[in-house]
C-alpha cells in the first residue's frame, strides 16, 4: 500500500514536473496562412468577390483553444500608392476643389477579417502599435509642412472616402476556427479592387496579447481580354488609339449598312 502510494506520488510529481516545465518554456505558438492561389484574376464579369484564406496555428495550447482565447486578424492590404485628398470649398457659389494634401504609400485597399469584435480581441494601444485596422493604418502626408489640424482632417477624410468606396472594409466574424488549430478567413474584395501586388497578413493574439504575425503576397490582376486591352492601352497607346478610331468607324459603317434609313 505504501509502495503503491509512493508510485502514485512519483507519477503525480512527474506529471506536475512536466506541466511546470511546459509552463516555463512552452513551445511558442506560430501562425501560418496558405493561399490557394498566388494570384486572383479579374474577368469581364467581375463584380467583387470573397477571397478565402486558410491558416493554421502551430503549437496551440489546447486549453486556450478550448476557451476560445486565440484570436486571429487577417488583413489583405492593397498596393501602396500616393493618394491626393482634395477638399471643395464654396467659391462664388460653386463648390470647387481648393485644398489638397498628398499622402504617401496609402494602401489602395484594406480588407480586414477578424474572429470577433475588435475591442474584444485586444486593446486600442496594441492596434495602434501594430497599425492594424482601418482606423490605425499609418497615413503620412507627402509634405509635412501643412498645419497639423489640416492633416488630421484630411487623414480622416481619406479613411472615410476609402470606406465609402468599399475599399477599406472590416469583416467582424470573418475569421472562423474550423478545428482547434485550423481557421478560415473570408475577405471581401470590392468590384473596383485595385490591381497589383497585395499583401495578406495574419496576426495571432492570445488572451488579448499579440503573439506573432505572418504574411504572404497575392497578386490581383486583370485576366484575359481585359488584361490585354489594359496592357495594349498602356504600352502601345498610339496603336491603341488608332484601333479605337478604326473600331468606331467600322461600327458606324456597319450601323449604316444594317440600319439604313434613307
Amino acid at each position: 500500500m505504501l509502495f503503491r502510494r509512493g508510485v502514485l506520488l512519483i507519477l503525480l510529481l512527474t506529471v506536475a514536473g512536466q506541466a511546470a516545465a511546459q509552463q516555463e518554456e512552452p513551445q511558442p505558438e506560430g501562425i501560418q496562412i496558405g493561399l490557394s492561389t498566388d494570384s486572383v484574376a479579374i474577368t469581364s464579369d467581375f463584380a467583387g468577390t470573397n477571397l478565402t484564406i486558410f491558416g493554421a496555428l502551430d503549437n496551440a495550447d489546447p486549453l486556450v483553444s478550448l476557451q476560445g482565447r486565440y484570436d486571429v486578424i487577417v488583413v489583405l492590404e492593397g498596393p501602396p500608392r500616393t493618394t491626393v485628398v482634395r477638399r471643395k470649398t464654396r467659391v462664388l457659389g460653386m463648390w470647387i476643389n481648393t485644398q489638397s494634401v498628398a499622402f504617401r504609400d496609402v494602401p489602395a485597399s484594406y480588407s480586414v477579417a477578424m474572429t470577433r469584435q475588435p475591442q474584444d480581441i485586444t486593446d486600442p494601444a496594441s492596434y495602434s502599435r501594430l497599425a492594424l485596422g482601418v482606423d490605425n493604418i499609418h497615413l503620412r502626408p507627402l509634405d509635412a509642412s501643412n498645419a497639423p489640424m489640416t492633416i488630421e482632417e484630411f487623414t480622416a477624410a481619406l479613411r472615410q472616402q476609402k470606406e465609402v468606396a468599399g475599399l477599406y472594409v472590416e469583416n467582424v466574424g470573418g475569421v472562423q476556427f474550423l478545428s482547434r488549430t485550423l481557421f478560415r478567413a473570408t475577405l471581401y474584395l470590392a468590384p473596383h479592387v485595385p490591381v497589383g501586388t497585395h499583401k495578406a497578413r495574419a496576426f495571432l493574439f492570445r488572451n488579448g496579447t499579440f503573439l506573432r504575425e505572418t504574411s504572404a503576397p497575392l497578386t490581383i490582376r486583370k485576366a484575359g481580354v481585359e488584361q490585354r486591352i489594359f496592357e495594349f492601352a498602356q504600352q502601345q497607346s498610339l496603336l491603341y488609339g488608332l484601333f479605337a478610331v478604326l473600331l468606331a468607324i467600322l461600327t458606324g459603317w456597319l450601323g449604316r449598312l444594317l440600319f439604313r434609313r434613307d
Partner: protein
Amino acid sequence: MGIYLPIAEMSVNMVVLLAMGATVGFLSGLFGVGGGFLITPLLIFYNVPPAIAVATGANQVIASSFSGALAHFKRGTLDVKLGLVLLAGGLVGSSLGIYVFAYLRSLGQLDLMVSLLYVVLLGSVGGLMLVESMRAIQRARSGQGASLRRPGQHNWIHRLPLKMRFRASKLFVSVIPVLGIGAVIGFLASVMGVGGGFIMVPALIYLLKVPTNVVVGTSLFQIIFVAAYTTVVHSTANQTVDVVLAFLLMVGGVAGAQYGTRVGQKLRGEQLRALLALLVLAVALRLAFDLFVKPASVYSLAGGL
C-alpha cells in the same frame, strides 16, 4: 449583366450602357446631333471618372458622326472643302485642348472645368435655341415663312481678308473665321469629349451664313476627324480611352439612331429645335445643380503623381 471596364477599372451594368447608348442614339437621330454632349455627362452621372468619360465620349462620337456623314455624303449635302478648312483649325484647337486637359487634371480642376464648360455652353446654346425656335413656332402659327438665311445681309465677318470660295455652300468668305470656329470646336472636343455639333451648327448658320442643308453634313464630316484625332491623342497622352465602354455605347447608339430619325421625320423643324433646346437646358441644369449644391462629401480622392 455586369461587365468589367479595363481602363475605367470598374464593373458596370452592360444593359444600362447599351440603353444609355440607345437613348442618346435615338435623340441624336431625332435631332441630327452627334450626342457627345449627352454621353459624357451621362457617364459622369454613372460614376465613370470624368477623364475617362471625356476621352471615351470622343471615341463614341466618331461612330455616330461617321454613319451620319456617310448619309449626307451620298445626298451631296456635305461641303468637303469647307469641312477641311474647319478641320485644319480643329486640329490646332484640339491639340491645345489636350494640353489644357492634362494640365487641369494635374491641378485637380478638370472636373470643375468640364462641368463649367458644359453649364455655360449648354446653357447659352440651349437658351438661344429655345428663344429662336419659339419665335419660329410663333411665326409659323401666324402664317409667315421662317427663314434663317437672309442672302445679301452681311456682317463684320464678311469684311475680313483672305477670302476663299466654297462652291457647295455657295459661300465666298474669309478663311479666318472658318479656321477660328474650327479651332474653338476642336478645343471643346478635346476638353469636353463632344463632337461640337451643337455649337458648330449654329455657328455655321448664324455666323458664316452657310445654307442649312449642308451644315449638318459638313459639321459631321469634320467632327469625325477632330474626334478621331482627339481619341488618338487622349489615348497616347492620358491613356483614358476605354474601348469596351465606347463600343457598348456605339452599338446602342447606332441602333437607337434609326428610330430617332424615323420619329424625327414626323416632327417639324422648329418643334424639333425647341425640344432639343429643352433637352440641352435640362443637361445644363443638372450639371449646374452639382456645381452649386453642397456635395455629399466635400472631399475626394485622386491617384498619385
